[in-house]
């Protein structure tokens, strides 16, 4: 228990005015070869995991809505690599890749998609609601913008406790048009909270183009409304994303929250059931041409970091990881109906209603003989 006069950890609560909205300085886009290879492996794992998830969906093993990170592997990898172990991640429903990259066992993620007991959310969350407190992966959220105030609040808690951690709050481009985004950025900037908002600009809401939904389509510029520094970065380059995130995170840790806009492409429909007919063939081709996994492979091969053999062996390795994940999921039991009322409340209370549908609130009771009844 501490006193209330704790000195603020950060020098200034206010971000000041130096270059809000300035593009991130682009330093040299190379890291040590092992690091680059690890990025590549990560990206391939996300790619293969998502492809397998899509297949499981068509096999009716996965239900509900299922949104994939296909095309966003570079951003996922770059963002996650920049984090410290203690940092928190909040995501939207398009979060499988982030959960994987955060180090959560692929089997537990696949089991969640399968709705099984050993799923990362015990089968309660599904594709949109993966969560793992140990990994400080604070959830996928299905309501657009719903995660943004939460992430801001976790940053507030870090600040309250003068902790060294930061929070990364992921969202899509469409999310920058909803009120919660603006309320949250203002609060974070006002209080100097340790948080980075990462807008994954894949150019589309569901079928709505950024230009049709955002009057300022250069989304990073919106940070200026809160005197918050921000940057736009090539989301197809994991190294660029990584470097931008390092800058952003160190700013955030110093009490100057930051917004990063990563420019990516969505390779498939909005969710696995969306054929994306609203997209022209050219648009679809352009996204395919920019495939970040393929592009990174070409680049690393050009640098001599990756060889054709290595590409094949990484793929094989990753495929077996994914196959194991599926096997794990398949073997995990379905949650038992007896657990249905286990997670309504953390602190038990009397009189909590625990009725299965159709059960009688009151068991049939006989009519009493009433003293003085006249009928």
């Amino acid at each position, binding site marked *: 228990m501490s006193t209330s006069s704790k000195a603020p950890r950060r020098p200034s609560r206010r971000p000041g005015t130096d270059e809000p909205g300035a593009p991130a300085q682009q330093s040299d886009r190379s890291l040590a070869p092992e690091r680059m290879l690890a990025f590549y492996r990560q990206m391939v794992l996300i790619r293969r995991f998502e492809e397998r998830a899509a297949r499981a969906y068509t096999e009716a093993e996965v*239900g*509900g*809505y299922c949104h994939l990170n296909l095309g966003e592997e570079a951003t996922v990898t770059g963002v996650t690599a920049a984090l410290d172990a203690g940092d928190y991640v909040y995501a939207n429903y398009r979060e499988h890749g982030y959960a994987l990259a955060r180090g959560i066992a692929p089997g537990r993620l696949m089991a969640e998609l399968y*709705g*099984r007991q050993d*799923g990362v*959310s015990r*089968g*309660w*969350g*599904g594709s*949109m*609601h993966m969560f793992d407190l140990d990994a400080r992966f604070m959830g996928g*959220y*299905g*309501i*657009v*913008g*719903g995660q943004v105030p939460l992430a801001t609040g976790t940053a507030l808690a870090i600040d309250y406790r003068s902790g060294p951690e930061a929070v990364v709050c992921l969202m899509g481009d*469409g*999310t920058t*048009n*909803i*009120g919660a985004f603006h309320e949250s950025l203002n609060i974070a900037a006002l209080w100097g909270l340790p948080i980075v908002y990462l807008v994954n600009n894949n150019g589309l*809401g*569901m*079928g*709505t183009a950024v230009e*049709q*939904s*955002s009057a300022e389509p250069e989304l990073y510029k919106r940070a200026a409304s809160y005197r918050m520094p921000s940057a736009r970065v090539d989301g197809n380059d994991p190294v660029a994303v990584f470097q931008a995130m390092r800058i952003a995170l160190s700013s955030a840790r110093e009490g100057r929250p930051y917004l990063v806009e990563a420019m990516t492409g969505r390779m498939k429909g909005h969710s696995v059931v969306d054929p994306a007919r*609203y997209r022209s063939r050219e648009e679809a081709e352009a996204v395919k041409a920019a495939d970040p996994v393929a592009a990174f492979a070409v680049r690393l091969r050009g640098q001599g970091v990756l060889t054709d053999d290595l590409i094949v062996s990484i793929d094989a390795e990753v495929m077996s990881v994914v196959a194991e994940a599926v096997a794990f999921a398949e073997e995990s039991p*379905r*949650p*038992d*109906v007896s*657990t*249905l*009322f286990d*997670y*309504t409340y953390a602190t038990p209370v009397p009189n*909590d*209603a*625990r*009725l*299965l*549908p*159709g059960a*009688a*609130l*009151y068991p*049939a009771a*006989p*009519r009493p003989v009433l003293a003085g009844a006249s009928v």
Partner: protein
Amino acid sequence: MSVISYRQALHDALREEMLRDDEVFLIGEEIGVFEGSYKITAGMLAEFGPRRVRDTPIAEEGFTGAAIGAAMVGLRPVVEIMTINFSLLALDQIVNNAAKIYGMFGGQARVPMVIRTPGGGGQQLGATHSQNVELYYAFVPGMKVVAPSTPVDAKALLLAAIRDDDPVLVLENLALYNTTGEVPDDIEPAEIGRARISREGADITVVSYSRMATVALSAAEQLAAEGVDVEVIDIRSLRPLDRPTIIASVQKTGCAVVLEDDWLTYGIGAEIAATISDGAFDWLDAPVRRVAMAEVPMPYAKSLETAALPSLEDAMNAIRETLDAVARRR
């Protein structure tokens, strides 16, 4: 008369009203280019253009409020809120503006708008996407709330809603979109505020709406084979609530079961049960039984979700047990 789906019935109602009245327009997320999350508005952008089929940013509060403001000066917006879950973000605009503007300003401005939005669980969409919160609107004076269960009612009630000068929420249901039924070609708007007896019967009254009204009919049909004659009431209009029709039925049958897709405690069924227990007090031979969702955040896993949702079996059991209770008392 043609047999069409519930989806088609909604689509047809929208299209006919758009053709009839230039002041009717559609507004919502992904209703144009994407043709609607559930395709109710498919083809409408192509036919009517972006002035009358308006794709919005993701901003439920903003675009619902904008529709209200457009209605205040006489346009007739039909808002699509993708699912009723997202309507919570627009709740303040609906409850504090749409429902109150006519009264709060002493009757000077009307708000002739419609909000179409589907409820419904059972699609493994998890806790935030499987709610039935029509209660939030049915509770509010100034709102009208209808909840059709058949294609014919879907069309007739949506027509009525668009022509009504008050804000009307039309509750659709994910599980009903593909159901089919006969719809007369020259259908008239329904009267908002009237329940429908969808099956006459003598032994017990089953009251319901939306998806559960179809479950009620199935239960009645199955129980007919057991010699039980069930009267089914589809209340259709949650606000105003047609109490007289419900009470008259229970005064005839002497007992009732309520089927609902929302949570039991404080749910829509509570009012129906309370109303019956009051208005048919001296006619009731058993307590009014409610069949509803389990009171948990809806789990994703199929095994749990199935257990949490009221089923046809649950409905039939409740009806049988209520009849047993009646027999014990008569």
